[in-house]
């Protein structure tokens, strides 16, 4: 159906976008790929007076190297991230998650920055960004600041991006040579995950030297399974050892209950999927 009437602004620079945000305050909504905002507007669940479209800001697209990190522009589409050779080489976990994100149409329209700023705890990119220790570059009236992934996700649909600020870049530390896997559990392919687990591991001589595990849809934000990470370090990449560590996957989580599964079922899934994700990431 049709959204309520709004003014449409299409700035061509971050500065102009910030100025528009400053001018319109909480009457404005920022649109990136629109894959979540447009349904919300069309169902009239929200009625902003101004919509600021970042699509015209060329500088927010693309992937580049910056020393030990990859820098991904916030307006880079999922499709572009999925097929970027740098991402494939240095942040394979993101590729694994993007590959399973929604469907081809959404991957062509939706953006990595839009998805992360939307902060749906069932979104596919929160857990991998936590696992990879991504940093979020946020531009505001006073310049830019960088927020660590662990501090970025605040609550359900709430991030560290303050009013008047924009997410401009995602900096992903290179995990060259790490094994990666995104284990997503859905009933139909295009569904948000009921639970998903993002795992990146560095295996040295059959032993897990480092491990990062992120959980999707196990609380009001994406979560890191720190207990699992700690338990994995120094363990052999075997079914038994990984299963023992994965049994701690639900520690500190607060999963929802809804028509796709009750909390206790999600708790169970988190453990099983963590074991599978880590084993797959370790190539075991």
């Amino acid at each position, binding site marked *: *159906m*049709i959204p*309520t*009437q709004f003014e449409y602004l299409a700035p061509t620079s971050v500065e102009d976008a910030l100025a528009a945000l400053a001018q319109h305050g*909480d*009457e404005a*909504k920022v649109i990136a790929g629109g894959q*979540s*905002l447009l*349904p*919300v507007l069309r*169902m*009239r*669940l*929200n*009625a*902003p*007076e101004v919509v600021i479209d970042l699509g015209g800001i060329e500088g927010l697209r693309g992937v580049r190297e910056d020393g030990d990190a990859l820098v991904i522009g916030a307006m880079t589409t999922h499709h572009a991230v999925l097929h970027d050779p740098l991402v494939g080489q240095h942040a394979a976990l993101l590729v694994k998650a993007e590959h399973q994100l929604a*469907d081809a149409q959404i991957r062509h329209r939706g953006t990595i920055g839009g998805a992360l700023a*939307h*902060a*749906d705890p*069932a979104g596919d990119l929160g857990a991998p960004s936590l696992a990879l220790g991504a940093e979020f570059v946020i531009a505001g009236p006073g310049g830019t600041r960088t927020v660590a992934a662990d501090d970025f996700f605040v*609550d*359900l*649909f*709430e991030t560290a991006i303050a009013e008047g600020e924009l997410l401009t870049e995602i900096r992903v530390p290179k995990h060259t040579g790490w094994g990666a896997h995104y284990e997503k*559990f859905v*009933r*139909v*392919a*295009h*569904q*948000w995950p*009921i639970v998903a687990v993002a795992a990146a591991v560095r295996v040295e001589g059959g032993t897990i030297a480092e491990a990062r595990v992120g959980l999707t*849809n196990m609380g009001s934000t994406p979560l890191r399974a720190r207990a699992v990470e700690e338990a994995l370090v120094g363990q052999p990449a075997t079914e038994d050892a990984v299963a023992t560590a994965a049994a701690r996957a639900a520690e500190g989580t607060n999963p*929802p*209950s*809804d*028509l*796709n*599964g*009750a909390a*206790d*079922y999600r708790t*169970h*899934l988190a453990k*099983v*999927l963590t074991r599978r994700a880590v084993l797959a990431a370790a190539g075991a």
Partner: protein
Amino acid sequence: MTAVEDRPDTSAKEIGRDRRRKEDQRLITGRTRWTDNIALPGMLHMAMVRSPFAHARIVSIDTEAAKASENVVTVLTGADLGEAQGVCINAWAITTDQVAPTHVPMPTDRVAFAGETVAVVVARTMAAARDAAELVDVEYDELPAALDLKKSAADEVLAHPDLGTNKSAFWKFDSEEAGTGGNVDQAIEKARGDGIVIEREYRQQRLIPAFMEPRSTVVDPTGEQITMWSATQIPHILRFALAATTGVPESKIRVIAPDVGGGFGGKLQQTPEEMITFAVARRLGKPVKYTETRSESLMTAHHGRDQWQKLTLSAEKDGTVTGLKVELTADLGAYVSLVGGGVPVLGAFMFNAIYKFPAYQFNCQTVLTNKTWTDAYRGAGRPEATYAIERLMDELAAEVGVDPLVVREKNWITHEEFPFTTVAGLEYDTGNYEAATEKAKASFGYDDLRAEQKRRREAGDRIQLGIGVSTFTEMCGLAPSRVLGQLNYGAGGWEYASVRMLATGKVEITTGTSAHGQGHETAFSQIVADRLGVAFEDVEILHGDTQVSHRGLDTYGSRSLVVGGEALVRAADKVIEKAKPIAAHLLEASVDDIEFSAGRFGVRGTDQGLAMADIAMAAFAAHNLPDGVEASLDSDATYDPVNFNYPHGTHLCAMEVDTETGGVLMRKYTCVDDIGTVINPMIVEGQVHGGLAQGIAQALWEEAVYDDSGTLVSGSFVDYLLPTSADTISFDVQHNSTASTTNTLGTKGVGEAGTIASTPAVVNAVVDAIRHLGINDIQMPCTPERVWRAIHDVGGSGTTDTEGAAMPHFDESTGMQGTTDRTDGAS
């Protein structure tokens, strides 16, 4: 006697050819006339104001702010429209004492389900109408809502307090009373002593037809006739209902179903929205359009299924069935809709299926609740019956300790026994269950998969394999009018067709069926091309407009080919008969010597002849016709079937179950359907594929879920899980043809077969995979969570109800600034 009779080689003929669908280019590109594409001069747009409550008194409706809104023409309530809005009819009062609330399109005092329309905004643009709908201020006094089916059947809370009960009608068939079989209670009692009794209760969850094109209606009242375009399956029935309930003469109403994007029974309806659009257009004297949103479609277009099935099957120790007793409780929702009251009863004749039950009893209690009303959905009554009996036959096999195919073979009607009168009183004309099953087993690799299943069980594999069987039949080709009369249905079941021979030799066909995606234009052209010996390209099929195809009973119940196609054949044959005297006259031969073959009228024993086109031109010119012969070859026919039509088939499904997560994955699906003569194999394959996907979706994915206050939780495709091609596998679709004897072409219906057969095949496979773990049922949809709970016995069985809550991807809690008042329920 059912051996396939020898038919002439059809390789040169149109029937049996994989013709590309001639309608697809316009349908796929959208360069066509969908209702919502229609724009008329001065046309106004409507938006509905809908109740957010399942059950409430309407205290007041303040329309002032909306009326003052820019570009708004008016805002109307039920009180404003009064009797001009007509009523939504209940065409199938299955009993004379059926309790049914009056279904006013826009009620004035009380709403009975969430989504019911209480006011309509009429504006110059659709956006203005939608904006103003949010300004209509409705004050409600919420009432307790009847939501749970079993509790509603016990009258705990009344859906319509004035009626005094939720129990709408009780309908019973008993084979002893009908003289078609024995006493079922005696059979069950005996089996309790020395045989086997299987008692189960199955849930048919509520489903949403979810057709691709949302419903849309345009009404133009400015001509001598009021014209309604509507995305409907039933233009003819709709015209009748409009006339019967508004007082407008039928001759002053023209209903057009232009290209319609799917229905699955969901557009077999006379909707409140159509009635309101009709009334508003008449009141304002201007063309008016209403197109629903997807949210409105899921919430208010009629739903399907929603039954509890209490089943008792008795058998001898060796698995020979002796009796079947069915006790259904069926949720009608808030109103008894067009044919909704009778849909559960359509299953009454099918629970016995292909098996020789000596005793049978069917009991059905229909119940009113404060949910969206239910009506036909692909299969309508027959999927429910097939599910119950095919699940039970697997349970019986498990009890006897034999393969599910063995217990079926022991009980099914053998091919030598046709025609066969069943315990439900139907006469099955043809079938060959043995042949279909043998072919399916071979193609499926049944024995190998059984061996793999055994290996996995013995090894205690995390992935277990299950094989599900469904040897289904159905009754389709609705329907012999006399039978419908006996069932107290409000109409007949005949169909109409006409053939117009144009001067240039081209042919125009009108059919009373109303395609909405089935491919009638192609298949009917093939039939006519063969029958009249004209080119496929020279046949035009006209339908879906009461002024063009003035008679008809429309499309549903797999009837278009087997009933409408037969009418077409008979009309075409009349053309030939009318042409013969003209041909004889022109050829200076006796009519008795005229032979018609492959489009040519020849004189027996000579090489003289004339083509059909020559006769058509001669009839048009009328310069040289025999005395007393009219200058027209045009003919028509109305065909009333003498019997239903009984396609059948064997469906085999292999499912993998991940015992750790409860996740299920389809491994293989083979079906061998016997649908008689196939007109167009490609269209048939498409029907089977789509039908299978829809039936599998009931088994695994789809469910309309309400919360405790009667709000539809699965109100978008985020939560109402439709499968895509990413979720289904490549089906192994085959046929085994036994020509039907109930129509000239030997065809059987195929529109619903896949849906009817597949659901139990899938659930049987899921249960079979984990039966060794002590499980004999998983409630549909077989979600991973239900399977997991059943396997691990965590928090109940595999039959727990679905949680009435959705993930909050798209609601107010998306943390976005700005507010919207949703209390008016506009969506």
